[in-house]
């Protein structure tokens, strides 16, 4: 059994290649000057520079959170580079202007930015290190009035929208990593779906870290106006490098009255080698605010990164609003994940669902950390939490940290938790029916993750399948 688990777990990371491009990279270090330089390079308006500087000053007074159940060498923030951009990327008129090397990179990753080969029904924004290298299907989206562009472009073209919503869900002072991001964020994606519009395409952003020693600090802002709806996908990879790389992103979602936003992530940052050398430190703040009758749904499949610190959350601001969190987090080798969600019930009859599946293999440590908070006015609030852990092998760990605060006694909360082990007996049973060990593990894990996988859009279900070496067909219904 162990041999087969090891082959599954130690599959070569396929996305570990490096792209040779000329970059405009600023020297390592972080001071007020760095923040000004980034803002200047991006030709930003004064108000945004001011916002960044406030964030930076606040960040200097903050300390890194110590409560996550992860251990790592102290991060020297002065040793990192906070801006790196391929030189060839200027504001683009069309995708024809994208550097062929970059297009090739995305082709290798299975993401086609060229017109002919694109996935039907999906618009893609590709972020390479700090900048967007191209957004596809813009004209189709424009017809529907949907804005989907890089964050930088949104600042130039739609400053009023950005200014209105930036920081409205995750204030720059929110936490150490959010403050850092607010000070130095380089690019990211921006989405605005107008009133009553159902976005005609799946929107997708593909994040790629390439440069050595460069952190990635993207910022995504999604606004669904009243009655609008949109589904958004995010994928991530990075080259194999021996040094740890820092990724501190912020995602903000605003779902106005009756709007629906579905946000899906397949996170496959480089996890480091089996000795724990290299890999991405993934410290991400993701949060949405749902107004009256609105719904925000997070689905995540987290397989990469050396360290994951991430709690996609929903503030259930409006009456009858709905928040969902579906998560699969896989750790192996020396990976550590501390992930979960927060559901903050403010409005009446607000509902939230949390389904978390943690899979630990190798020497991986997986922690679920979830908060359900019901405020005094949230009469009739309901939460259902299900938190399952699966262990593969004897050296890994699974931990659960639920926090529940209820200030309205008409609320209903349900919590279920389980821990299971992929047993030799389960694998043997499959083998005795003709399945090899790898197939057996895939099947058992797919069964375990079923409730989450069925929430993923098709394109991502396929990617998740490849990632976990899982055959989903039929077993997920």
């Amino acid at each position, binding site marked *: 059994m162990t041999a087969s688990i090891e082959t599954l777990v130690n599959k070569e990371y396929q996305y570990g290649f490096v792209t040779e491009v000329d970059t405009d990279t600023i020297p390592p270090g972080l001071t007020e000057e760095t923040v000004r330089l980034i803002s200047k390079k991006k030709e930003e308006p004064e108000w945004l520079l001011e916002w960044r500087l406030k964030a930076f000053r606040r960040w200097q007074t903050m300390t890194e959170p110590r409560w996550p159940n992860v251990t790592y060498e102290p991060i020297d923030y002065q040793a990192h580079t906070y801006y790196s951009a391929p030189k060839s990327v200027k504001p683009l008129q069309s995708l024809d202007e994208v550097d062929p090397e970059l297009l090739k990179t995305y082709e290798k990753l299975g993401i086609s930015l060229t017109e002919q080969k694109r996935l039907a029904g999906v618009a893609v924004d590709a972020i390479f290190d700090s900048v967007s290298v191209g957004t596809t299907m813009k004209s189709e989206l424009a017809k529907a009035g949907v804005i989907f562009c890089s964050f930088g472009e949104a600042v130039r073209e739609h400053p009023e929208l950005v200014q209105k919503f930036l920081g409205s869900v995750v204030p720059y002072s929110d936490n150490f990593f959010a403050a850092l991001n607010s000070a130095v964020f380089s690019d990211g994606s921006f989405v605005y779906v107008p009133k009553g519009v159902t976005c005609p395409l799946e929107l997708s952003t593909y994040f790629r870290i390439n440069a050595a020693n460069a952190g990635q600090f993207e910022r995504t802002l999604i606004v669904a106006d009243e009655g609008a709806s949109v589904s958004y996908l995010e994928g991530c990879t990075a080259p194999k490098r021996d040094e740890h790389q820092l990724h501190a992103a912020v995602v903000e979602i605003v779902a106005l009255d009756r709007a629906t936003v579905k946000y899906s992530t397949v996170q496959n940052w480089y996890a480091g080698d089996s000795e724990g050398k290299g890999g991405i430190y993934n410290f991400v703040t993701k949060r949405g605010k749902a107004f009256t009758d609105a719904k925000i749904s997070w689905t995540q499949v987290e397989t990469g990164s050396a360290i994951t610190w991430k709690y996609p959350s929903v503030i259930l601001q409006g009456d009858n609003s709905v928040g969902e969190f579906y998560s699969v987090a896989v750790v192996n080798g020396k990976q550590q994940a501390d992930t979960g969600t927060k559901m903050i019930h403010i409005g009446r009859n607000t509902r939230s669902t949390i389904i978390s599946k943690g899979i630990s293999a190798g020497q991986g440590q997986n922690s679920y950390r979830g908060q359900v908070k019901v405020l005094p006015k949230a009469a009739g609030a309901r939460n259902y939490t299900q938190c399952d852990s699966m262990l593969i092998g004897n050296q890994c760990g699974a931990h659960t940290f639920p926090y529940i605060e209820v200030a309205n006694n008409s609320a209903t909360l349900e919590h279920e938790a389980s821990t299971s082990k992929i047993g030799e007996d389960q694998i043997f049973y499959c083998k005795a*029916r003709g399945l090899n060990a790898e197939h057996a593990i895939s099947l058992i894990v797919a069964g*375990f993750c079923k409730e989450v996988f069925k929430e993923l859009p098709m394109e991502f279900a396929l990617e998740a399948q490849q990632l976990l070496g899982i055959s989903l067909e039929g077993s997920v219904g």
Partner: protein
Amino acid sequence: MLKITNLHASVGEKEILKGISLTVNAGEVHAIMGPNGSGKSTLAQVIAGHPGYEVTSGSIEYDGQDLLELEAEERAQAGVFLAFQYPIEIPGVTNAYFLRAAYNEIRKAHNQPELDPIEFLDVMEEKLTVVEMDASMMQRSVNAGFSGGEKKRNEILQMAVLEPKLAVLDETDSGLDIDALRIVAEGVNKLKRPDNATIVVTHYQRLLNYIVPDHVHVLAGGRIIKSGGKELALELEAKGYDWLLEPVTA
């Protein structure tokens, strides 16, 4: 078809099988009986290739090949089937998906094309009738939340679908009421062909009223202490095992 010669197997330091020899020819039904803890399940698991048991000496020849050289899945692909005494649950994986995966692995091993879910439905439909099982069972997770009887019937369903050459049924009758026992036994009988063979491990004679064995063996203390025809089962039913055991413990 199957030739076991002087087989010794242990778990850790503990020897469980202490020299088993057994020959099973195509078309035959063999019953293995014996007290609890005598090593019946161990023998069944060793035939199927459970990695937890170490074969310390002896050999198993199956269809002219050295069975002990094969991984468990290769044995299954070569037509060896074990109906588990305690079938294992696989939550979240539908019975239909699991069975088709198994069916296709075996077809692949024989260079036959795999069946898609629609084609497989036809195979299923026919086999479900063999064990009088409702099609809705196919959408439930493998053995999860099944009653004891449902689990055993599900094993026979798998056997019906996979059409093994050598089937080993490990106490498939335990815990079954009389109706379920009849269904399971009839299922096994329907699947009997001149070119396959069945080893029925059982505690009780009653199953052998339905599945009539050609040979009966008594396993005790890791050894076959007596073999005979079907009348041996009746004798055991009447006298118990003690009359056989005494010389062994002496």
